[in-house]
């Protein structure tokens, strides 16, 4: 019986290990590649022990194909999107989650509906209008279209956190004549700090990783890292080591976020998916 249990556990561990290796290995492989010379990249059989070089990172940081301006573009757009989204989404989510008012179901459905819209449906009108306004290749233009996916997502995720706060807290504060706004600010918001953190992380992540809007509505001034990575491959076809180094730099922020906020991320995925909203 015990031996049976032992084998069972071993098999389970092996299967799970293989499963995770499939996810982790390509990324580790890319990491290793970013430290190789282009010659080592194309060695067959592959070299496992190679002399690591920082030349690729030097190239993508300070070289002619530096992605630092692109990292800056991404940072600006993602930060603007996150701040605006949270400012607009938090009050709306509070109302949707906790207050009584007419047409509540309808407004909830409307927000959910906007979350289901395919980005392809939005990009053509945005392109035409921004072109007419001369606002292609601007931070403002890109940030506004980023709100279309960030806002519905943030509202629904926050609603599920607001719903978890016991209603007695508000009643007590209101009986003390604390005023609605003060109650929200001093009593309720501290209760959903965790939710605010999760939502902020997700909105920033999604904005950082966005590609289609950025490639169409960006340009020479506003070129995010995702667009820069794509251009890299078409220009530097065979220079995989350089591409890998660029990709590692571009993805460093989100990988760090994923690593340090892993508990929050799992919770965010689950809350969103199990309760209703949340689209990644």
């Amino acid at each position, binding site marked *: 019986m015990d031996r049976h249990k032992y084998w069972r556990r071993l098999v389970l561990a092996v299967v799970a290990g293989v499963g995770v290796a499939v996810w982790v290995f*390509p990324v580790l492989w890319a990491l290793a590649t970013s430290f190789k010379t282009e010659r080592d990249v194309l060695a067959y059989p592959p070299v496992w022990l190679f002399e690591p070089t920082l030349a690729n990172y030097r190239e993508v940081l300070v070289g002619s194909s530096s992605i630092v301006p692109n990292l800056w573009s991404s940072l600006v757009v993602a930060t603007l999107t996150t701040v605006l989204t949270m400012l607009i989404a938090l009050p709306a989510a509070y109302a949707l989650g906790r207050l009584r008012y007419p047409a509540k179901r309808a407004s909830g459905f409307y927000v959910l509906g906007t979350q289901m819209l395919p980005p392809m449906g939005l990009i053509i009108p945005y392109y035409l209008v921004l072109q007419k306004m001369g606002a292609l290749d601007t931070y403002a233009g890109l940030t506004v279209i980023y709100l279309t996916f960030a806002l519905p997502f943030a509202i629904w995720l926050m609603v599920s956190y607001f719903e978890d706060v016991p209603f007695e807290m508000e009643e007590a504060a209101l009986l003390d004549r604390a005023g609605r706004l003060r109650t929200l600010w001093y009593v309720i918001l501290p209760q959903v700090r965790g939710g605010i953190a999760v939502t902020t992380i997700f909105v920033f992540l999604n904005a*950082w990783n966005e590609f289609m809007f950025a490639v169409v509505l960006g340009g020479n001034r506003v070129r995010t890292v995702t667009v820069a990575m794509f251009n890299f491959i078409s220009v530097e076809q065979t220079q995989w080591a350089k591409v890998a180094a660029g990709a590692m730099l571009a993805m460093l922020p989100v990988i760090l976020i*994923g690593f340090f906020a892993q508990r929050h991320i799992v919770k965010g995925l689950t809350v969103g998916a199990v309760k209703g909203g949340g689209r990644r």
Partner: protein
Amino acid sequence: MATRPARSLAAQERRFALALLVPALVVLLVTTTVPLVYLAWTSLMRLDLAMAYLSGFAGLDNYVKMGSDPRFWNSLVLTGIYTASTVILQVVIGLALALLVLQIPRGQALLRVGAILPIVLAPVVVGLFWRTLVLAPDFGLVDLVTRSLGLGSHNWLGDPDLALISVIAIHTWQWTPFAFLVLLASLATLPPDVYEAARLDRASAWQRFRHITLPLIRPAVVMVVILRTMTALSAFAAIFAATGGGPGSATEILNLYAYRTSFTELNLGYGSSLAMVLLAITLAISFLMFRLRRAR
């Protein structure tokens, strides 16, 4: 006497709720609904940036044109294959792995970190990784394996049949962790005493799964299916980076066809009508699935 303050409290609550809600609703209206109305309008236009002098109202011409456009029908079929296969693969693999991992007492945290990695990566970077390091002929990881096994080298993204399988594999690779993590969390909340009772009744493992586990996690499974379907219908960056929709139109799902028509061939009128079809399909499917979720 007691009702008046209560009523004014309710009125005050209504006003407060509207004040909080209006900014978000106005922003959503202006940034999503108004553009969609404009899209519906441009889908009725002849709007070809390469031949701007021909632009003008065209009625339903764009929609009529679809009927005899083999590339459109091809993209519809590919969208169906791509969406169905990626969603099924993600849910089946994710659920199987979650059921397995649930029985491992230690090391779950490590598994979670590994699973989060693909989710946080930008799809365009995932597409690039696969195009170069994983699927490239001769030097990609997959070819290194097939070559060492004596199966030879394949052009995974250059051969039309293999390319479709490859982009399905890429999507499945990136998003299965989502299904896995959500279903694992859902499974972890199930009450253990039900299983004890079932075990005493000598229910087999399959019976326990079929009659206890599955009904209990059904809401989570349906939600995963809805969210993954939406993502698959709007898949873009990974395919665009890996194959660009090609070779030819072998991986050109409707989303990519609408994009290429609009921004490569600059035919924004026809592109708009293709986007309208995608919009209709997406909303219809999400509506159906949400009804399915509430049924039972």
